[in-house]
């Protein structure tokens, strides 16, 4: 159990820039000291006293809030991620919702509809959908916020130990105050304010459709020379000018044609996105059983972009590899150890054919395997001073913590692997205090005084420790990346060439290497340096830089001991995944902190690089700048696949300069795959933003560590691997899962489906609303451009809610052109998404013309039929009601038939929805045409159907309830209205109160309700 009291060092919290060792692992679980939670506000100095609550309650830390009310400048530790409480929910939520352009648009429309001079559609046609939308969104927000409340409560009530009255007492997180000293245990959760990330769902709107809408209105306006300044029957008592009337008419058409882009579009898109996200969360084949981690879509707005990815930027360690480090090989004083027998024919088979037996060392970790017995023999003989120094360095120069007896907690897996290796070879790291380190060195316990720890960062790429040996010597141990170490070696240092060749060999075997070296320091030299070090430590400005400078002064003239080689195994299925994604024309860039050779070999082993590729290296930049070349000319004129391998340094010196950015991107994009090695987190993000900027492509970043956060946030889509490292990558990602190989399923299956579904949905949605709305447009030519609508108001209100939305919504949720296995088997199926073939201007206009065509037919066929027609009973059914019902019914049939043709995956739900939509339409029509509803609301339901039988039945039921004295003379007349829905007398017959069967012809002149009801009573 580790405790780390705050205040010992001003240690820094998790920081994107921290990058230990040759790759880039950070660990935040231990490094956080939690007494500095709040940044001080303003320029006032930052005064914090540890473990002194009374001090922080002094009035000087209060700030004036309102008049005499004061509030502590340091806020408490209560986490508040929720947005609403009981009182603020309604106003705040409405405010949030009306920040969206779409809602404002519809609100404005609603206001327009309330102006009597303009209104063409009654107010409820917009109000009902708007209220439904606002309501659904509000409920969704409410559920989200309740979850946040619950989470906050849980976090705020977490137990922790606070130093109070001289001992640690259990407290809740929310009671922690500034300056409290707390004790953290391993895996404790640290809810430091400001580290909680909230996501807000936003929906995009499609501007095309709106533009189109205005186009049409403009057109309608230019044509709108209304009839009738001389039509006396249209006289409305107002002496308005023609242009003013045209103006009113324009707004009227704006309201009518708004149904082209209805609110339900926004709702449906959100529902579909949510559904796709849920399907990702539910996918068993992206569930990692070993860690019980399902995939998680953390944002719902990006699903369809998953189907359009062109560039993937991947971290290496922990993303492509497992991030489980194993010490495999080493080179000490020019001699390599750990080679497998096959690769080293000289070593005797007895010594190296089987793993080392660790039984001689009681502290050994039995799981540790090493293939070279000669090294152990060499060490046990204690003759080889340099081998001893090698492992002594490994056991001393690190930042590993001892959790309990021989259980280590390492900041990075590399360090853990090195310390464990040292332990197995007889140099057991036992414990550390603030300034001593105790190790058991070949059964002999020794304590070293730690004079200084020159910590790691991503620029230094090395760490050093200055130790005072028990015998009084002062020595600096240093380990770091070979490039930085070699620059600082003493000219007297031996084994440089042999170590270098060993390093190259290790790198070829995809091993991660570190160079180890030492330096003896005289006490006077140390004293002098130490003073400078102290000065630098208390510098107020630019302390980091000052410290780096001081470190630089002592880390020179180093003596090389050797190098370590650590293996990081590839994750399962990585080569297959990369090969598959490459087949889908997705370009994969690996951005890693590793050295070039390691990265290159990893590239080969995970089939990112293949033998048929022509490799280009960034060290030799093109002799001439692209500026002189014609843009069309490729950088690599030779046919065949190309791959580019560059280093971070090169990016800074050449590619980073503004002039050449485009050249770099163009060049890199000509390659099938790109590997950037030795890049810092910032450079990773820069590379991503360069490609985004110049290629306008959809990019995806995938990573697992804090160092990938920049890159993940920069790319269009960020994917976090929830792996060995902390949660930062996952917290800042859009999608998270446990294994790299799930990426192919995410893109090729879910991404592809989401894209196809969304495109299909949008295409159909626009089609159905064009077909629906443009009928008004055609009708306007025959209604004197008066913005009279072609359908009944209720139909317009309900069309997008009930009559046509469900089938297309289901297509957007469930449709599959091919199943998941085929999607994975044929990665080329992914290409249409990348090229944006399924929804673009062309498709949009095809939908538009399809809609126009259908609306023409829906309007003009009834027009022809109604122009001079008579019904079977002689009446002329060319009235507005009949016409509106006929066009509406044809529209419902057409639209539902069309979606039936477009559905490629017919589940029973789809079937139900299509038939249900038609049934609901007729059901509602039936009810709207009933006499009862007109009698109750004569002004709102004017489409009373012409169905006498139905009316009689209604009256009978009414009469049965009332006293039989009800009398009214009825004249029978045959009903011939085509859209009436006659209901027989089945109900009466079944109820046993059957009446005399009514003749079908027009005989029943004398039947009356009274008669019927009396008979019913008699039975």
């Amino acid at each position, binding site marked *: 159990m580790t405790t780390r009291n705050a205040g010992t060092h001003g240690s820094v919290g998790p920081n994107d820039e921290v990058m230990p060792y040759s790759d880039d692992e950070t660990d935040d679980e231990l490094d956080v000291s939690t007494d500095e939670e709040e940044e001080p506000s303003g320029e006032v100095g930052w005064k914090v006293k540890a473990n002194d609550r009374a001090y922080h309650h002094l009035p000087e830390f209060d700030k004036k809030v309102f008049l005499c009310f004061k509030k502590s400048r340091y806020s408490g530790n209560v986490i508040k991620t929720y947005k609403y409480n009981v009182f603020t929910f309604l106003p705040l939520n409405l405010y949030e919702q009306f920040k969206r352009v779409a809602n404002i648009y519809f609100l404005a429309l609603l206001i327009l509809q309330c102006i*009597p001079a303009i209104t063409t559609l009654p107010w409820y046609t917009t109000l009902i959908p708007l209220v439904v939308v606002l309501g659904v969104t509000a409920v969704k927000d409410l559920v989200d916020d309740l979850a946040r409340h619950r989470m906050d409560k849980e976090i705020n009530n977490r137990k922790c130990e606070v130093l109070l009255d001289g001992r640690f007492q259990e407290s809740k997180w929310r009671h922690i105050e500034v300056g409290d000293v707390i004790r953290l245990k391993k895996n404790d959760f640290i809810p430091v304010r400001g580290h909680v990330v909230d996501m807000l769902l936003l929906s995009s709107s499609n501007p095309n459709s709106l533009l189109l809408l205005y186009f049409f209105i403009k057109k309608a306006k230019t044509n709108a020379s209304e009839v009738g300044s001389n039509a006396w029957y249209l006289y409305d008592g107002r002496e308005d000018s023609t242009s003013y009337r045209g103006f009113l008419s324009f707004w009227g058409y704006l309201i009518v044609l708004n149904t082209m882009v209805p609110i339900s579009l926004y709702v449906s898109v959100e529902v579909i996105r949510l559904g796709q996200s849920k399907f990702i969360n539910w996918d068993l084949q992206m569930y990692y059983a070993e860690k019980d981690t399902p995939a998680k879509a953390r944002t719902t707005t990006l699903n369809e972009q998953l189907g359009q990815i062109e560039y993937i930027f991947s971290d290496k360690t922990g993303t492509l590899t497992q991030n489980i480090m194993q010490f495999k090989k080493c080179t000490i004083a020019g001699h390599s150890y750990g080679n497998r027998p096959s690769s080293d024919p000289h070593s005797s088979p007895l010594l190296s054919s089987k793993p080392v037996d660790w039984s001689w060392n009681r502290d050994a970790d039995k799981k540790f395997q090493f293939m070279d017995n000669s090294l152990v023999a060499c060490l046990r003989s204690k003759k080889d001073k340099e081998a001893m120094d090698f492992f002594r360095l490994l056991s001393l120069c690190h930042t590993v913590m001892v959790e309990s007896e021989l259980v280590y907690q390492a900041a990075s897996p590399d360090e853990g692997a090195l310390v464990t290796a040292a332990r197995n070879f007889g140099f057991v790291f036992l414990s550390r205090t603030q300034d001593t380190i105790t190790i058991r060195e070949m059964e002999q316990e020794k304590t070293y005084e730690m004079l200084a720890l020159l910590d790691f960062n991503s620029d230094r790429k090395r760490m050093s420790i200055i130790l005072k040996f028990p015998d009084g010597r002062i020595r600096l141990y240093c380990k770091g990346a070979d490039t930085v170490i070699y620059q600082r070696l003493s000219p007297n240092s031996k084994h440089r060439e042999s170590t270098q060749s060993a390093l190259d060999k290790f790198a070829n075997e995809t091993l991660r290497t570190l160079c180890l070296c030492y330096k003896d320091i005289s006490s006077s030299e140390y004293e002098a340096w130490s003073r400078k070090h102290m000065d630098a430590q208390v510098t107020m400005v630019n302390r980091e830089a000052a410290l780096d400078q001081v470190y630089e002064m002592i880390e020179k003239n180093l003596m090389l001991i050797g190098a370590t080689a650590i293996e990081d195994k590839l994750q399962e299925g990585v080569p297959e995944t990369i090969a598959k994604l490459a087949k889908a024309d997705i370009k994969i860039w690996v951005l890693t902190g590793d050295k070039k050779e390691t990265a290159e070999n990893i590239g080969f082993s995970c089939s990112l690089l293949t033998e048929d590729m022509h490799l280009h290296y960034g060290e030799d930049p093109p002799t001439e700048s692209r500026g002189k070349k014609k843009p069309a000319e490729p950088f690599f004129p030779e046919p065949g696949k190309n791959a580019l391998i560059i280093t971070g340094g090169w990016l800074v010196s050449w590619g980073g300069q503004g002039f050449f950015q485009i050249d770099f991107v163009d060049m890199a994009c000509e390659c099938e795959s790109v590997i950037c090695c030795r890049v810092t987190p910032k450079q990773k993000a820069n590379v991503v933003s360069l490609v985004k900027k110049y290629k306008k492509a959809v990019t995806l970043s995938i990573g697992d560590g804090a160092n990938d956060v920049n890159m993940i946030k920069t790319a269009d889509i960020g994917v976090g691997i929830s792996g060995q490292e902390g949660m930062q990558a996952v917290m800042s990602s859009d999608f998270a899962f446990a294994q790299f190989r799930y990426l192919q399923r995410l893109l090729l299956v879910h991404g592809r489906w989401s894209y196809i579904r969304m495109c299909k949905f949008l295409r159909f949605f626009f089609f159905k609303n064009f077909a629906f709305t443009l009928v008004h447009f055609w009708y306007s030519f025959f209604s004197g451009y008066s913005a009279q609508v072609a359908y009944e108001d209720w139909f317009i209100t309900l069309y997008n809610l009930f009559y046509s939305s469900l089938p297309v919504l289901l297509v957007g949720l469930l449709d599959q052109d091919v199943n998941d296995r085929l999607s994975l088997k044929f990665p080329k199926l992914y290409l249409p998404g990348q090229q944006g073939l399924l929804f673009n201007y062309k498709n949009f206009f095809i939908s538009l013309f399809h809609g126009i065509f259908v609306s023409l037919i829906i309007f003009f066929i009834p027009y022809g039929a109604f122009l001079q027609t008579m019904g079977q009973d002689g009446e002329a059914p*060319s009235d507005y009601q009949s016409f509106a019902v006929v066009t509406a019914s044809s529209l419902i049939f057409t639209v539902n038939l069309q979606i039936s043709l477009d559905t490629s995956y017919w589940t029973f739900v789809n079937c139900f929805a299509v038939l249900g939509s038609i049934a609901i339409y007729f059901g509602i029509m039936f009810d709207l045409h009933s006499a009862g509803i007109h009698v109750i609301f004569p002004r709102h339901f004017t489409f009373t159907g012409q169905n006498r039988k139905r*009316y009689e039945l209604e009256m009978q039921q009414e009469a049965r309830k009332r006293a039989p004295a009800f009398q009214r003379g009825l004249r029978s007349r045959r009903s011939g209205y085509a859209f009436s829905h006659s209901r027989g007398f089945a109900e009466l017959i079944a109820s046993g109160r059957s009446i005399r069967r009514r003749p079908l012809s027009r005989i029943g002149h004398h039947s009356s309700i009274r008669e019927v009801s009396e008979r019913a009573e008699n039975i």
Partner: protein
Amino acid sequence: MMASSYNAKEEDGHHSGPSSHGGAGAVKSKKPDNTAFKQQRLPAWQPILTAGTVLPAFFVIGLIFIPIGIGLYVTSNNIKEFEIDYTGVDVSSPCFSCAKNYSWDSTTSCTCSVNFTLEQPFESNVFMYYGLSNFYQNHRRYVKSRDDSQLNGDRSALTNPSKECEPYRTSEGQPIAPCGAIANSLFNDTLVLYHVDSNGTKISIPLAKKGIAWWTDKHVKFRNPGGNDNLTIAFQGTNKPVNWRKPVFELDPDDRDNNGFINEDFIVWMRTAALPTFRKLYRIIHKKSSSTPTLASGRYILDITYNYPVLSFDGRKRMILSTISWMGGKNPFLGIAYITVGSICFFLGVVLLIIHHKYDSRNSSADIPN
């Protein structure tokens, strides 16, 4: 083909690895449910449109639509219809002077007579229509200008009509009943039909003015305030529409039950037309006996009491006589539309069949391994 055959995937086999979770059952596994819906493998039918399915569809549509179209067309052609324009635009036309000298205020009505000849006898019931052209009964401001509550007999709406009726809401300080522009512009020409027999004597033809409105309009939508007794009292305190000569309760002097809001001519007018050229049922000539035709061929005279001005907006007035069949009135359009669509489908079917046979060289089902 039912694509419901789903091969169990690897994951389906092992249920949450026994080793991975220590506290067996204590910690709830986050493993997603293995249901057909959540794993997106609901049983489904995946229809694939091929020539084999599409071509027959074209032919079937063609073969169904063409006979229907022919049937409709023939039926429509067998219907007898006679139409005459009596607007009086032309100087030679009998109603020219009436059309010219029209004024709303004139107390004496202008009458004119139009002679016409029916070449063929009209069997069975004959329906008489008036037709108006270039009359935008579907204009938005016109369509709204009514109060359905008032027409439904609501007493409060009778005395306080809806604002939609403006400017025909009140006149001389009293509410208008029925209010609004539609009611105000009620068609008020009177048409009377005479048969001129071989002797040259005019025989009046009985025109039934009841049964011309929708049944539900007459009995549900339109009701007089306070029942049908003593309409004069019921409409007390209201004024007639400004263009009317008589109040609403005196629309039909012959039939006491055909007055007020339930006057059938009024109801027919209030059912606004969808298009600017429309017909409305005016009278019915019932068939008297099975032996003689309802309207024999010969000369006829149409007497018109010319009240309704249409020339100001370039409108036309017509009188139409028509018989009715099972498909309604004469309307060749539907038959032609059916024949056209059927023919197009059939033609496309043939073209596609030819293309299919000519270019379908490949093996139609490419092997797609599952």
